């Protein structure tokens, strides 16, 4: 408790009525349908109660009545901002249970798509975080670039948000030369934009004042609360599923894991900006050495019925360590599917982190956690 900021007790405390302010679900800047009940004294928060579940669709129950191919469609709807890692993690878990080996070209395509999607997701974070702190222009710049990534996805799989692109045993469709050229064009275009983002927002003195030394999370607290992704790495914990538990051949790519120093909002923010740089690097490498060959493994049945067993797969999604715990009883649909939703687990720390901060910091802290309510509520 002492790690995050505690309430400042003024010495000559005047007895005042505390005020209950409802942040959301219709507040203009709650991310999705999150409601936070804030008890404030003046501008100081004394209690915060996040209330989730407005978007609960029971994906885990739905999966128990659907085939494995159908479940991939369901996964698109969790973290709709970065749906490719969702597809991927389910496919990895199902492939583990079925013992399917994915061809190298499909693996490389999965890596490219996931990293592009990570960039798209972090761009959305960048833009909305700008809005949270009052700057509107970075939002539209970020969306301008994100639009290009979504165009790339639309070119390859026909959808802009719910891709259903990564399938059991490979990917839906191969990419063509026109797509590769477009992707390279985007990468070349995007690299200088990242420096511009730094100029516009990251090193803007007002923005830095808003976010530095706000919402501090120490290493121990971050681990204890089970944070993952940039929230964990912003606190300086070097843990990335791409390095710790490599999948899809991530060990072949040369990239570093950016780490924060103090665990402040700015550290978490800048971790994401740096991750975009690393993702660009990975996509460049993957595009350069894209192996030829098939994009779909042979031997994936139309209605797969894997042998009874259990598998756990986790990937480094845009929001953190996204995991799937899959249990099969030998039928055509998963007996049990559990999603380790990073947004859900990251959000839990909010109730402790907000206490003792100003109302103006609530949005900065909430934005820096970067949640997607589709994934929180599933």
């Amino acid at each position, binding site marked *: 408790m002492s790690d995050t900021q505690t309430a400042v007790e003024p010495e000559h405390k005047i007895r005042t009525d505390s005020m209950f302010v409802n942040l959301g679900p219709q507040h203009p800047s709650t991310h999705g349908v999150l409601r936070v009940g804030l008890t404030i004294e003046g501008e100081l928060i004394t209690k915060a109660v996040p209330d989730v579940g407005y978007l609960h669709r029971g994906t885990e129950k739905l999966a128990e009545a659907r085939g494995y*191919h159908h*479940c991939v*469609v369901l996964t698109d709807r969790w973290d709709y901002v970065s749906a490719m890692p969702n597809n991927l993690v389910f496919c990895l878990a199902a492939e583990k249970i079925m013992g399917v080996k994915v061809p190298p070209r499909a693996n490389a395509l999965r890596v490219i798509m996931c990293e592009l999607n990570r960039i798209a997701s972090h761009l959305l974070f960048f833009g909305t975080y700008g809005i949270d702190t009052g700057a509107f222009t970075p939002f539209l710049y970020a969306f301008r670039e994100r639009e290009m990534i979504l165009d790339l996805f639309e070119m390859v799989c*026909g*959808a802009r948000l*719910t891709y*259903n692109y990564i399938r059991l045993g490979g990917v839906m469709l191969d990419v063509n030369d026109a797509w590769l050229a477009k992707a390279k064009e985007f990468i070349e275009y995007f690299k200088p934009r990242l420096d511009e983002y730094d100029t516009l927002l990251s090193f803007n003195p007002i923005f830095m004042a808003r976010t530095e030394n706000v919402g501090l999370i120490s290493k121990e607290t971050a681990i204890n609360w089970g944070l993952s992704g940039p929230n964990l790495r912003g606190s300086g914990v070097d843990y990335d599923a791409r390095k710790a538990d490599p999948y899809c051949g991530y060990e072949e790519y040369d990239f570093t894991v950016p780490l924060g120093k103090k665990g402040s909002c700015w550290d978490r923010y800048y971790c994401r900006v740096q991750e975009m740089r690393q993702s660009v690097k990975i996509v460049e490498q993957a595009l350069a050495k894209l192996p030829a060959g098939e994009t779909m493994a042979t031997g994936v049945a139309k209605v797969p019925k894997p042998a009874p067993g259990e598998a756990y797969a986790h990937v480094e999604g845009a929001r953190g360590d996204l995991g799937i715990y899959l249990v099969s009883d030998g039928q055509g649909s998963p007996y049990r599917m559990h999603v380790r939703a990073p947004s859900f687990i990251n959000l839990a720390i909010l109730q402790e982190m907000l206490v003792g901060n100003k109302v103006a910091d609530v949005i900065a802290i909430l934005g820096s956690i970067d949640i997607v309510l589709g994934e929180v509520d599933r």
Partner: protein
Amino acid sequence: MIDYFSKVFSAAWNTWKGMLLTLKYMLKPSITVHYPTEKLVPYERFRGALLFDAETCISCNLCVKACPSFCIQLENATIPDPKNPAVKKKVAKVEWYSIDFGKCNFCRLCEEACPTKPKSVWHSLDYELVFFSRDEMVRCWKAGIGWVGKYWDRKAKDFKDPPGQVPIMEVNVRR
């Protein structure tokens, strides 16, 4: 003292750089498209509203099984058996076919599952899919109804053409 001034100067310099950046983009052409005054053609693989061709369908039920949200329904056409007219015999033709767009995921699984050449059910390039009532979400096809399908108006008790949907473009090669 020097520290203070260097801090103030760097803050001012970063601020000024940010302002120059916005000025730079102000002088560049804008990138937006003025929908609906201007409309774009989506990419070739775009997964728009589903179309269905009752003439090529062989009523194999694969799309029904492939659909993750159970939104497709169909029924085999039957003809009286020539030997025993009382018994109805199934033929490889569809009697009726319906898609519930309220549930459709636009996931392309039905199109992939379709075994006919050309495809009997496929995604068009239409992104202007709107519904004015719940009835319109369920599209029905029978022999003689076009690709876009019709919906059953519960008030009028009649099939009607969906008002919202005019395909942007139908690319033959996609089927």
